């Protein structure tokens, strides 16, 4: 049962004791990636370099000198992080074939600790979307679509119509990373989070999704969407693993001047037994329109869990919550308009054959390279930044941003330690249903519960909580104070232990990896 192990408790120990070698582990993961290809979670599988890294790791273990707990551990990285020598596409025609000359800081940090980079995962084009359905390499399929739990609950209309049309989305935009972790092809994956892009797919795929405080983890090498909100995200199968990844990634980076200079000390999560000193806030505005009654029930049940364990649970108010999506819409498109300006075909990426003039070449390159979602946001962003609109839209949105951030400051000042909210409005939708609305509508709907944390720069984590009536994962979100990840993760770990979220029963995986799964066990660790 190696592939479904947690890092700290099992895999690292297994590697150290020689129960499994890094190359064996790497090969198993690569084989699993092949057999789960239909999920479309990976854009690029770096087989050769991964095996080489695994061999080097093995050599270190042989000498008794592993670099640390991540040495030899297979990981995946969202395809909007630069990786030297490996194609980085952002799921866009604009960067198809682009081989970066450098590693993003977070990638470099993982490699420096001996992690094995299996490949780059699929996403919505340039991380714009909430379904991982709008990239040029096609949509990502949620592994739970193929789970026993989902299949048992779904009623196929006809024999031929079952799996092919019933599959559900992963959520987005880090859907590939979430699917990769969820289907056991890697132990952890990097995502990015600007409006919820790590937490949303984490909730839909039944994995842990951590959005760190803005400024804690370097964005150097993460192809930017919204510079003032983007953060690298961490996806793992349990909260302890997220803490390990955080420990290896956080800290000031001279190459990213928006990282804080405070000393960061990696931490181990205590096993919290007494929650009586904790104050949990339940923001009433997060009972948003469209929130499924199923999720409301789970949310209330979770609140009761804390209450019954002795914690103080209070209703709080974040009055400007409902404006966060509109505010995001303006700020995001404005920053996108600026960030996407670098893609002109001259220095890298796609270049159109049009030669009449620089500007017509730029325009054709960008029309050919970007999908409609990206182009639409660039155009809108430029509109909001026009001199006649600047005060009315951009500055106005910046003011609303302060109001949203202040809402959180007030609540935390009143004594609340952690906020408990749903992560998504419902469980994952079937793909055929999801694509009936356009990207902007979907994003506006789906980001409602996650976006405000990005506005305020706060750390937030989605923890798999329970299965829906359809047999699909539902996650709940905890939002903490700035730079208080230790407290946030400690509470999340306690919650994870209480809910005992079931492990996915993937028949394809079982078939391929027979003998490795000796028994089914819950995904939580004690």
């Amino acid at each position, binding site marked *: 049962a190696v592939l479904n192990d947690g890092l700290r408790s099992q895999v690292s120990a297994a590697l150290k004791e020689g129960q499994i070698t890094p190359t064996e582990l790497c090969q198993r993961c690569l084989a699993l990636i092949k057999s789960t290809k239909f999920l479309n979670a990976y854009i690029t599988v770096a087989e050769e370099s991964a095996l080489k890294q695994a061999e080097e790791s093995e050599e270190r273990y042989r000498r008794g000198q592993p670099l640390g707990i991540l040495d030899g551990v297979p990981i995946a990285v969202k395809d909007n992080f630069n990786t030297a020598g490996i194609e980085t596409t952002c799921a866009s025609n604009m960067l198809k074939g682009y081989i970066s*000359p450098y590693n993003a800081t977070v990638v470099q940090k993982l490699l420096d600790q001996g992690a094995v980079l299996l490949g780059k995962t699929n996403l919505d084009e340039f991380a714009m979307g909430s379904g991982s359905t709008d990239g040029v390499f096609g949509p990502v399929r949620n592994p739970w679509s193929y789970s026993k739990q989902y299949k048992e609950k779904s009623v196929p209309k006809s024999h031929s119509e079952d799996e092919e049309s019933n599959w559900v989305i992963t959520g987005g935009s880090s859907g590939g990373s979430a699917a990769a972790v969820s289907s056991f092809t890697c132990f952890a994956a990097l995502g990015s989070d600007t409006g919820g892009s790590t937490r949303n797919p984490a909730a839909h795929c039944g994995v842990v999704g951590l959005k760190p405080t803005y400024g804690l983890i370097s964005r150097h090498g993460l192809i930017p969407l919204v510079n003032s909100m983007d953060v690298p995200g961490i996806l793992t199968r349990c909260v302890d693993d997220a803490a390990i990844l955080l420990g290896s990634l956080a800290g000031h980076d001279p190459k990213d001047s928006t990282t804080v200079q405070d000393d960061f000390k990696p931490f181990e999560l205590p096993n919290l037994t007494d929650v009586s000193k904790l104050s949990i806030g339940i923001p009433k505005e997060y009972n948003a329109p469209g929130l499924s009654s199923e999720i409301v029930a789970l949310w209330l049940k979770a609140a009761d869990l804390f209450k019954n364990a002795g914690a103080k649970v209070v209703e709080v108010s974040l009055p400007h919550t409902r404006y966060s999506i509109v505010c995001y819409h*303006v700020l995001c498109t404005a920053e996108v308009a600026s960030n996407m300006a670098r893609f002109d*075909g001259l220095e890298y990426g796609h270049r159109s054959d049009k030669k009449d003039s620089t500007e017509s070449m730029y325009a054709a390159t*960008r029309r050919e390279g970007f999908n*409609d979602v990206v*182009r*639409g946001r660039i155009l809108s962003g430029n509109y909001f930044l026009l001199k006649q609109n600047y005060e009315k839209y951009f500055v106005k*949105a910046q003011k*609303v941003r302060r109001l949203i951030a202040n809402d959180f400051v007030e609540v935390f000042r009143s004594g609340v330690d952690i906020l408990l909210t749903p992560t998504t409005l419902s469980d994952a939708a079937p793909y055929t249903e999801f694509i009936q609305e356009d990207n902007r509508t979907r994003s506006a709907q789906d980001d409602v519960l996650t976006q405000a944390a990005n506005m305020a720069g706060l750390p937030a984590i989605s923890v798999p909580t329970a299965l829906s009536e359809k047999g699909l994962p539902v996650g709940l979100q905890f939002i903490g104070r700035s730079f208080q990840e230790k407290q946030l993760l400690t509470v999340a770990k306690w919650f994870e232990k209480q809910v005992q979220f079931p492990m996915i029963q993937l028949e394809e995986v079982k078939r391929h990896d027979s003998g490795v799964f000796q028994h089914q066990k819950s995904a939580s660790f004690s």
Partner: protein
Amino acid sequence: QKVSVEVLDHLERLALVDFRDSEGVERLQKAIQFADQLHEVNTDGVEPMDSVLEDRCLYLREDDVTEGNCTKDLLENAREKVEEYFVAPPGNIPLPNLEE
């Protein structure tokens, strides 16, 4: 309030995404309509927020050269180049207006 053709042409010159067709215009109109909801919020006396880290001093490093000499790597990804130059088509030629 519809976006005028002048504004659209101006926007295209700024954005360079060739999105002045009916679909592009419709998207833009919808985006503006959506953004107009912002005006419901009272922001009197509120300062705009550039960054959540506004209370901190931005890190400035020493003005020393620490890396570079990677011309070859940087040129690797360009499609059209001559020696150490990126080659662009002729500039200063304005884009045609929508009506043209």
